[in-house]
């Protein structure tokens, strides 16, 4: 039977390479898979393109990747209170693609759902329309937004079984749920692993088809 449980965060990030695009779940600390932060650093990769809502604001999050200068570009909605990122940004050593949060999530969903893009009313008439194709439908103007996809997706769940079915805890679902659909390799850090059959089929949020690796953190 399928078993996606891996030993630790190191095994969860195995195969990550220079230049990869990496999605990292979380809104603030909720949904952030902290175990992979150092595991990725340990792999010695660089030039990463990171897709995440924030750009790190404490000593156990994406800030560490900016300090270590392994990020070439970040696609995110709210890189405030992000001191390490801000330093790299001011120095011109990291590229920022700022995306409205709802558009960011929807672009990730499009990537996971096999869509070529979508028409959004968000950003029309603002700097967020710059460089984007405008499409008018039934008299309303929209921006054509393109899908996002990643080589690796790292997210935080609550419970998992060995098949890879995932539940989340409270507001920690945030971007994790769509990110789980949009990575070539999807690795999920969870609080606890349960027996197959323990999760109520009605309450599984991410079905196992989307999940490649599951691990618990060595605390």
């Amino acid at each position, binding site marked *: 039977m399928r078993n996606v449980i891996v030993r630790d965060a190191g095994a969860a990030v195995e195969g990550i390479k220079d230049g990869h695009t990496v999605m990292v779940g979380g809104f603030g600390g909720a949904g952030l898979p902290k175990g992979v932060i150092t595991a990725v650093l340990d792999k010695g990769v660089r030039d990463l393109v990171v897709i995440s809502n924030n750009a790190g604001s404490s000593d156990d999050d994406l800030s560490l990747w900016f300090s270590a200068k392994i990020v070439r570009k970040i696609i995110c*909605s709210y890189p405030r209170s992000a001191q390490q990122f801000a330093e790299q940004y001011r120095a011109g050593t990291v590229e920022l693609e700022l995306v409205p949060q*709802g558009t960011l999530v929807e672009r990730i969903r499009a990537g996971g759902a096999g869509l070529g893009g979508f028409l959004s009313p968000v950003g029309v008439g*603002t700097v967020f329309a710059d460089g984007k194709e405008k499409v008018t439908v039934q008299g309303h103007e929209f921006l054509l937004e393109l899908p996002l996809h990643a080589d690796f997706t790292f997210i935080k769940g609550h419970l998992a079984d060995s098949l890879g079915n995932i539940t989340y805890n409270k507001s920690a679902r945030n971007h994790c749920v769509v990110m789980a659909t949009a990575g070539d390799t999807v690795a999920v850090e969870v609080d606890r692993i349960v027996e197959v059959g323990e999760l109520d089929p009605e309450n599984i949020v991410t079905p196992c088809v989307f999940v490649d690796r599951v691990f618990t953190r060595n605390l």
Partner: protein
Amino acid sequence: MMKPLSRDALARMVALHLPNEGFVNLGIGAPTQVADYLPSGSGVMLHSENGVLNVGPKPPEGQEDWDLINAGKMPISLKRGGSYFDSSLSFAMMRGGHLDVAVLGAFQVSREGDLANWTTGDNGSPPGIGGAIDLAVGAKSIWVMMDHTTRDGRPRIVERCGYPLTARKVVTRIFTNLAILDVTDNGLVVDALLEDMRVAELQALTEAPLLALGKVRTIKQDGAVLA
């Protein structure tokens, strides 16, 4: 003349205007404070962009759950009948017009309801947009809550926003520490004004022209408004 409303009184004034049983999103910063002044029994249900409906108050110290936070990343609680969901559904709620009111902070609002609330364009600091722009486009009513002028006395309610726009022609109502203004097709209409203040005095602090068409209601120091 009375002093401008305190932050608390302004939050209270906004809270007292929210529709009963409405679905409301309070933006990060000052608008978050509105939650503290919702009348008991108002039935207002608060939405948080990161995937929470029916947000409750801050939990007692020591009982915070950092998996249960609001858009400002501060610990919250969940009221009975609340629910959790992912960001794609949360933004579908926002962009899809399912929320009755979004209360947002702003740097500037124009006569036509243009909103500038995400950046002053200051060089150096990385900009952040977050979810405010999705709310501004999607909620049924967009209310702005802000000081009437900048700290150095310049108007925030202007002919045309000088700061980068968040969205065009979306603001429907402006609550400031001096007045309540309705954004109408005819222009900005003064709905309520600080007690003892005159419309001409308010106009002097406002770049866009103001209309006082009907009866102007009176704002008391505690944020209550009298007809």
